[in-house]
């Protein structure tokens, strides 16, 4: 293992301190926890938004804390859900009196831990609701999940729900738009090389030099198929087709595209993928309203990418375009 770290067991704490040092006016750490909030939290009268999950997916989720997006992110150990006590502290810290909304990626551990925190907060009289994002069309069940996994599409749910809450929506209205966004999002990923969890010290799986895996998860969980690597156009086509097969998109409907790097993919290659995704959708008469290319939800230093499509309506377009001051999502 070759990594720029001090101690494998301190990576999350060290990263948090580095983030706070980079954004001292925007972010703060809740003392005694690995949760990060906006510096102005709690915002009175606004529904508080909390997300989080295992670390190793940076900039998710702490990079999305800021005006227009999340109020707090709770950081677990690498690829491990944060615990309920930490999530509970984050909920309390962002409760501005109008309730708190949780955005959870669909992994068994995340769902259990966030739901337990929700129960603890409710026992304190805080109104809490949630959405579970499961945008990955690759596999139904996996080593980390019952049902589909939540991957990069979650970032667009943060964006949309964040804008809604910032506009002063009630907890119920926030939930409605969150469910609409989550229901309209589909993603799928692929990888060329694995990643190494610092505490484990060795890669969690192996791929041969000429091999790729389609449908892989953001923790290296098994996908659909391993096969010899092909061209970017063929990869983009396969990913796009798998998404469209699962999505009801009619002629002239509008979408947002996200081409996301998994940690070690050159931006050049992400744009090459995007070129083909764009071309395929255009050929099908699907309108591309907005495109995001970059690293939004990574898997440490995995090489590979994911493609996400979000079906839009007028409300979602407006929310997607709204201002965001989160460090990793300036809009």
């Amino acid at each position, binding site marked *: 293992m070759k990594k720029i770290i001090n101690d494998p067991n301190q990576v999350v704490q060290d990263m948090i301190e580095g983030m706070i040092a980079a954004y001292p006016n925007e972010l703060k750490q809740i003392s005694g926890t690995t949760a990060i909030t906006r510096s102005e939290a709690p915002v009175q009268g606004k529904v508080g938004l909390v997300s989080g999950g295992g670390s190793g997916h940076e900039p998710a989720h702490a990079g999305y804390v800021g005006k227009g997006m999340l109020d707090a992110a709770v950081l677990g*150990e690498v690829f*491990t*859900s944060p*615990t*309920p*006590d*930490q999530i509970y502290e984050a909920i309390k810290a962002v409760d501005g009196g109008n309730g708190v909304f949780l955005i959870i990626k669909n992994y*068994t*551990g995340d769902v*259990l*831990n966030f*739901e*337990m925190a929700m*129960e603890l907060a409710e026992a304190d009289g805080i109104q809490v609701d949630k959405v579970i994002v499961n945008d990955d069309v690759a596999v139904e*069940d*996996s*080593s*980390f999940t*019952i049902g589909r996994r939540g991957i990069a599409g979650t970032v667009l749910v943060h964006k949309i729900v964040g804008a809604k809450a910032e506009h002063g929506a009630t907890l119920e209205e926030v939930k409605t738009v969150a469910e609409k966004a989550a229901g309209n999002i589909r993603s799928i990923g692929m990888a060329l090389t694995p990643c190494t969890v610092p505490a484990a010290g060795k890669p969690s799986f192996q791929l041969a030099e000429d091999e790729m895996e389609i449908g892989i998860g953001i923790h290296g969980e098994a996908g659909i198929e391993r096969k010899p690597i092909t061209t970017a156009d063929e990869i983009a086509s396969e990913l796009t087709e798998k998404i469209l097969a699962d999505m009801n998109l009619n002629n002239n409907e509008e979408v947002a595209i996200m081409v996301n790097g998994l940690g070690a993919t050159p931006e050049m290659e992400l744009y090459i993928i995007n070129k083909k995704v764009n071309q395929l959708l255009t050929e099908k008469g699907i309108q591309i309203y907005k495109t995001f290319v970059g690293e939004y939800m990574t898997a440490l230093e995995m090489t590979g990418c994911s493609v996400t499509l979000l079906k839009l309506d007028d409300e979602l377009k407006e929310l997607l375009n709204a201002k965001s001051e989160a460090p990793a999502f300036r809009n």
Partner: protein
Amino acid sequence: MELQVEDTIQWLEKSNEKIQQNKDYLTALDQAIGDSDHGINMSRGFQEVVNQVKSKQYDTVSDVLKDTAMTLMSKVGGASGPLFGTAFLRFSMRVKGIDPISQDAFTKGMEDALAGIIQRGKAATGEKTMVDVWSPVVDYFKGTTIVQADEVAQTAKKAMEQTKEITATKGRASYFKEKSIGHIDPGAASSFYIFEALSEVIKGEG
């Protein structure tokens, strides 16, 4: 049976001893059908529970159980943390204001604990989870006028062994589906140790 603060702490200590002794065994069970960390996580969590409850003075069983719940949920991690945490938290809430805990109160606490596990894990009986041990033990308490210590342990043990025959449909083991047959569920095994410890405490008090 009757449970006082000291008995409850003893129950937790004995549970911890058994989990520490069987740490590698629990991890091996999890290796077969999970992600091979159950023994490590449970031993870390229960050790913390014992450290916590021995370092404080308690007036009520409910408070001991509440601290147990909070410690398990923060220290065990994974799926087991919130599941065992929920069980002890619900138990604690149900027996709040009752001291010592009578058999009747204990039974009600157990019922709520099981309901919490089922709700949190969205699992039913017959899905190869800890529910398959908790459920028959709760049934035993509900159907018995005077609890016999040995019967508590036997009920739990039999139930744990029966999880071998079940195909997993919940939890991480469901990923291994048919492969899970023939293996005891790790959460069922650690639940057994907790009930075996309970039976020893009941026996000890006569």
